[in-house]
């Protein structure tokens, strides 16, 4: 779909209007105009301040959130709708205005200078492309660094699938977009702009390298953290001071663990404190470590939002329970076992093996 064209009717009413609002220049105006008006090209002439397009741009600058057609009409009532439409269409195609839809109607907003850059770059690159490609590119750009799936592009642009695929291939060959495999569903490919860094939710962050979950890496980190906490608890226990100090010195904050792991240098990837905290959480779920949160002053190293997480290695509270010491506790065919059947306590092979220990 090409940029919408606004229909307008009356030309030339603007000049009269401008003359009317600026009395001082009125006298000099016609003279100046008669002397100094060079034979400029159409575009340059249209860029003088009494031109509807510049007026509209000024208005847009005044209202950075966007103006409706009504506002433009109020400001320049002498311009016909036709002229207005032409001006707006020109601005849209040049990429200086954004067209938005609100619940009251259509809004025109000035494109901010940041986007002006890539737009001009984009314009230079896509001179030859048609509007469909421009639209698809726009959609992908809007998706930011999370990327967008091809089906979603189809929904947003209402283009048929074949068209979309062709356009995507085109854009990829021009190195404007790239496809990134999502870690959640390995068959799904999301598209994003070429120079953007994919978001962590797509690549999985530090634990994924090329879409593969690195279990060994996680295991190694797990063990190292646990050893560090265990040795800390040991030294605290052997110091035999009064119990408060003993307990407090057996704690390690997440910051300390992070520093220790960084110094170990086992990780090729830079790990943040949150990453270490996820590893420490897995240790909690293993039942080897417990955590407390204390309030810490803002400024002490390692504190986040006024509190710090402390971790400590602990022992399990009961030894392996009685049931698992008997073969029946771990038997895989427990439900089939009954006296007089194929599998029974009298001929249980697990029991025979167990009795021979």
């Amino acid at each position, binding site marked *: 779909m090409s940029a919408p064209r606004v229909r307008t009717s009356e030309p030339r009413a603007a000049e009269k209007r401008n003359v009317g609002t600026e009395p001082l220049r009125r006298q000099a105006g016609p003279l100046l105009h008669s002397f100094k008006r060079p034979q400029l090209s159409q575009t340059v002439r249209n860029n003088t301040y009494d031109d509807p397009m510049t007026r509209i741009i000024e208005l847009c600058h005044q209202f950075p959130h966007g103006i409706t057609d009504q506002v433009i009409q109020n400001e320049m009532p002498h311009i016909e709708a036709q002229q207005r439409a032409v001006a707006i269409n020109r601005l849209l195609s040049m990429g200086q205005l954004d067209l938005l839809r609100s619940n009251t109607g259509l809004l025109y907003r000035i494109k901010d200078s940041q986007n002006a850059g890539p737009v001009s770059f984009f314009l230079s690159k896509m001179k030859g492309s048609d509007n469909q490609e421009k639209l698809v590119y726009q959609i992908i750009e809007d998706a930011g660094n999370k990327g967008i799936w091809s089906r979603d592009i189809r929904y947003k642009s209402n283009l048929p699938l074949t068209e979309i695929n062709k356009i995507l291939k085109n854009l990829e060959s021009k190195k404007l977009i790239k496809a990134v495999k999502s870690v959640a569903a390995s068959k799904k490919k999301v598209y994003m702009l070429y120079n953007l860094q994919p978001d962590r939710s797509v690549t999985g962050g530090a634990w994924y390298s090329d879409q593969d979950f690195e279990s060994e890496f996680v295991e190694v980190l797990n063990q190292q953290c646990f050893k560090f906490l265990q040795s800390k608890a040991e030294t605290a226990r052997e110091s035999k001071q009064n119990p408060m100090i003993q307990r407090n010195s057996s704690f390690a904050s997440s910051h300390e663990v992070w520093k220790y792991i960084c110094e170990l240098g086992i990780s090729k990837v830079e790990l943040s404190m949150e990453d270490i905290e996820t590893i420490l959480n897995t240790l909690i779920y293993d039942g080897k470590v417990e955590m407390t949160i204390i309030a810490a002053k803002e400024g002490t190293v390692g504190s986040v939002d006024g509190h710090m997480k402390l971790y400590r290695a602990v022992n399990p509270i*009961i030894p392996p329970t009685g049931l698992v010491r008997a073969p029946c506790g771990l038997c895989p065919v427990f439900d089939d076992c009954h006296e007089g059947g194929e599998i029974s306590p009298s001929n249980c092979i697990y029991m025979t093996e167990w009795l021979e220990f």
Partner: protein
Amino acid sequence: MTQAEIKLCSLLLQEHFGEIVEKIGVHLIRTGSQPLRVIAHDTGTSLDQVKKALCVLIQHNLVIYQVHKRGVVEYEAQCSRVLRMLRYPRYIYTAKTLYSDTGELIVEELLLNGKMTMSAVVKKVADRLTETMEDGKTMDYAEVSNTFVRLADTHFVQRCPFVPATENSDPGPPPPAPTLVINEKDMYLVPKLSLIGKGKRRRSSDEDATGEPKAKRPKHTADNKEPIPDDGIYWQANLDRFHQHFRDQGIVSAVANRMDQTSSEIVRTMLRMSEITTPSNAPFTQPLSSNEIFRSLPVGYNISKQVLDQYLTLLADDPLEFVGKSGDSGGGMYVINLHKALGSLATATLESVVQERFGSRCARIFRLVLQKKHLEQKQVEDFAMIPAKEAKDMLYKMLSENFISLQEIPKTPDHAPSRTFYLYTVNILSAARMLLHRCYKSIANLIERRQFETKENKRLLEKSQRVEAIIASMQATGAEEAQLQEIEEMITAPERQQLETLKRNVNKLDASEIQVDETIFLLESYIESTMKRQ
């Protein structure tokens, strides 16, 4: 009563009391309370035998009776009490640790006989102890009585309910079954008895003939006809008190594992102080002030008051939450959170079973879902840092074994699967029940295997028994070494080996039964405590 429980009860009754009692007992457990004639008719045994079997069961507190309207007396079996028979070794061992051999024998006699009078217990225990002592020494009755009184004071033995003495004589016929009453105050009151005597050694007939003149013999028999001073006052073992003790032991060892020895001693002191004051199924103990605890610490521990306070604060702040602070008077009032402690122990049991059966990664997922209560599939993978495929596999395995359950939350009224949230959750109570059922079946399996092993080697066992009897008799008649040697060789070396193996296996199976019973105790206490609170 589940099938597994009934099976286990039948095995236990058969092992302890024999076929007939087992038949009657199992029939009663299955069918609930029934009158005498119906029992005789349904089981096809003669009335006489049914009466004897019921006598045995009532004596051991396994069957209770009630008078219903129109004078019908109905008998009801108590399945849970039958299952306590598994725990007898543990009770006896506890008594031994607390009150040494005398206490052990007293409790053993009470458990084996159901109900006994104090004088009978004392006499029997003294006799048994005297046999084990060296020649010439005997056990004094007074010592045994002292231990008995101490057991009664700490509520380990209690009086049985008895028939109240009616002052005015009943005009009509006596009721078909007596109603038994017991006053709360009288339950642990020891009657004033003066038991004087010494334990008698059981002598073989030869020594009797040489030792004592015949004149003294009639006097011995006359002794037995004297009226017993405390006739009608029967004592039984108070199982609830033992259970309380086991629970305390569990809590103390958990604290010792998590923190250090001193903290566990403090917790033990607190529990000891609230033994008598707190009923056994209360969720919290009575609040104890830090000053009281300081005074009641065992004499060996000289830690200062300050250090004690620090320990108490640490205990109260610990994530385990066994000890809570309930106030600040008296230097800080502390309670022990019994319900929470039992819950933690039961959860730890569940976790341990999951870890041993499925592996430590599954245990990680299990603990994760326990802590976070409800989780989606994706969240489980993220938190546990386990690859998606493996995590899915483990979750489904645990789901099929009923450790984890699914909670469905539909987004649309038509419950379409694609638009429903499926959350994994752990229901501790139902998982505990499931595990308890498995424990019962496991113990039944172990008992069966033990009986099978014994039956397999029956011939060998009988032979070895015969040989031992022959050797004993020959030793008594003063045979020579060579003859003894010859008879001992009747058992060949491989047979001896077989006997050794058999003994070892039977011991192992026995020990394993007791270990599984520990798990049963934890789970049952937790389930009971939770049901009481609801």
